[in-house]
């Protein structure tokens, strides 16, 4: 999978490229609009990440021209502008997704993967992490065969964590998926719910699955990290 990253901020470009490389993507970077447009025209990319504020040609112009040449390539727009009008303009120009700076890398990654329609957006009916099992059809949760009763919010939170098992999800991402943006002010609602969820899911068991990554967010067990 080959991704074009058009971003003029050296450091932003570098950490995104590094993160994507670690996820085994091939990444080309462009530091200005002209180079970006040139690359987008010459190479068949699987996905383009496009910053809006660029020297040379602006991001929205590039988007229009890319769409002219290649109507199918997914384009994810990065921007420091979050006005609704700007969003609408870019969706109309053909953007597939939109991410406002600053963002958590995990969020960028999840959105890229969603656009490429490949994992980890699991469509499985039963999600498993270690001995924890979540059945999406019956909405039942079991650990080591024992039934666990969850409220609907706790269930939604656990499902979101388990679908993205192994990834660190930021509080903002959790709020936006499980609640809505209105809660993204000052509240510690995520921490409260995670604590309640832990009491039910982890407390009685030796092996703790829900992990806090300080400064970043929460993740549920397995894989590389422990």
């Amino acid at each position: 999978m080959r991704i074009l990253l058009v971003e003029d901020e050296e450091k932003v470009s570098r950490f995104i490229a590094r993160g994507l490389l670690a996820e085994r993507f091939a990444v080309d970077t462009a530091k200005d609009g002209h180079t970006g447009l040139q690359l987008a025209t010459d190479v068949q990319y699987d996905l383009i990440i496009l910053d809006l504020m660029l020297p040379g040609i602006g991001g929205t112009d590039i988007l229009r021209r890319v769409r002219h040449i290649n109507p199918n390539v997914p384009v994810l727009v990065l921007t420091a502008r979050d006005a609704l009008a700007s969003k609408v303009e870019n969706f109309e120009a053909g953007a597939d997704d939109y991410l406002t700076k600053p963002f958590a890398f995990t969020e960028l990654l999840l959105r890229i993967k969603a656009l490429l329609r490949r994992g980890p957006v699991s469509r499985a009916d039963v999600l498993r992490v270690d001995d924890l099992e979540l059945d999406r059809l019956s909405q039942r949760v079991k650990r080591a065969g024992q039934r666990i009763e969850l409220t609907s919010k706790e269930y939604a939170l656990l499902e979101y964590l388990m679908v993205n098992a192994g990834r660190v999800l930021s509080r903002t991402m959790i709020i936006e998926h499980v609640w809505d943006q209105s809660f993204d002010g000052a509240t510690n609602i995520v921490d409260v719910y995670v604590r309640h969820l832990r009491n039910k899911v982890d407390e009685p068991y030796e092996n703790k699955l829900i992990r806090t990554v300080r400064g970043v967010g929460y993740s549920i067990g397995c894989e590389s990290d422990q």
Partner: protein
Amino acid sequence: MNARSIRFRMTVWYAGLLAGLLILFGAFAYVGLEHYLHEMMIESLATQAQQIGELLKNVDASGEAYVIDEVEEHLAPESRSRFIRITRPGGGTLFESGPPKDRGFDPAQLPPALLPPRETSREIELPSGYDLMIYMLPYPSPAGGQYVIETGAVDREIDEVLHGLAIALSLALPLVIGVAIGGGYLLMRRALSPLQEIAHSAEQIGSHNLNERMPVARTGDELERLSISLNRMIARLEIAFQHISRFTADASHELRTPLTALRGELEATAQYPQLPPEVRETIGSALEETERLSKIVQGLLAVSRLDAGEADMERVRLDLAELAAATSEQMRLMAEDKSILLTCDAPGKVMVDGDRARLKQVIVNLLDNAISYTAPGGKVQLRIRATAHRAVLEVEDNGTGISQDALPHIFERFYRADKARSRQMGGTGLGLSIVQAICLAHGGEVRVESTEGQGSLFSVSLPLANQKG
């Protein structure tokens, strides 16, 4: 009627002044007329006395009987209600008029004349309440010695004239003042009505519609100048305000890119598995601060957009009561977590036109604030009701409350009543500013009442949805 309005005060002053002047005028007229009438009467009495004196000049030749006849005939004191008495030089009455027709006085009851050194007048109070004015003229007798000529009249007519004047004045004065008050009030209202319009339109202009101007009253007078000056002031405010909100927006915007890099680098670093725990801890702490910085930037941008009227506001009809009930349900666990009883009292539908997500944010921020500042075991109540024209949303807690010093500043950006505590709780210092900005953008307002140590009451008031529209 507002007792402090210019119209009212001007009218009162003007009417008071007019009343004072009229009373003064009336008093002068009364006293002046009284004085004048007395003078006139004394003058006429003096003339009579002089006439009698002329008769007495030749008394030796004509005889006393002639004098008496002349007096009776020409002066007719009884029929004209006059008093005439002539006293001989040695005492003894030469002539005394009889009781007058109207029995106003009895001459026989009057004290005898004493010889005055020169002409003089005196007043004798009669049982009827009127005064008998007597003019006394000493007149030299050709035979030597002095006659005393007395002429007198009752001042009843004078009193009647003055009484009439007093009645006329006391009737006319209130009438004139009343007309003056009414007329003055109407005149003032006419003259000041542009002022009311100016005040009304100035009232409509807030931070979200500084681009609007007030209608200029083309009257060519001070009021036109006032409205022009006010418009210029609004224009200057608009420029200053645009400056600030542009700056805030630009600053927030410019901060985002470096924040993205910072966050990305830190997150990437945190991925290294071999990091020593202290370093992991430090990076985590740095990431937390980055997160907070992002929220501050986001909040600032949101507030400045709302203030500048640039926010993309949705306007849909929604039931505030239902929104409040649903939101408080979502916040319930946060309250229970602190053993706080959260109740929502939303008995009926309360329809407003507004931005659902933003109004929800108002409820979330107010509830979050109330829960944060209420001790375990406390109570937080959310109430929604509709008054005649407003939807009212109240959040009341029995928590720590807000000191009187802090109360006026509570909605200011970054204002923290208890600095150490709120920062420790990780707030951005913008929650209540956002609440206020959202309320204002909806044409509403938010107020707070609080007693330190007893709790706070935040009340949001929004315009109810127009039933027809």
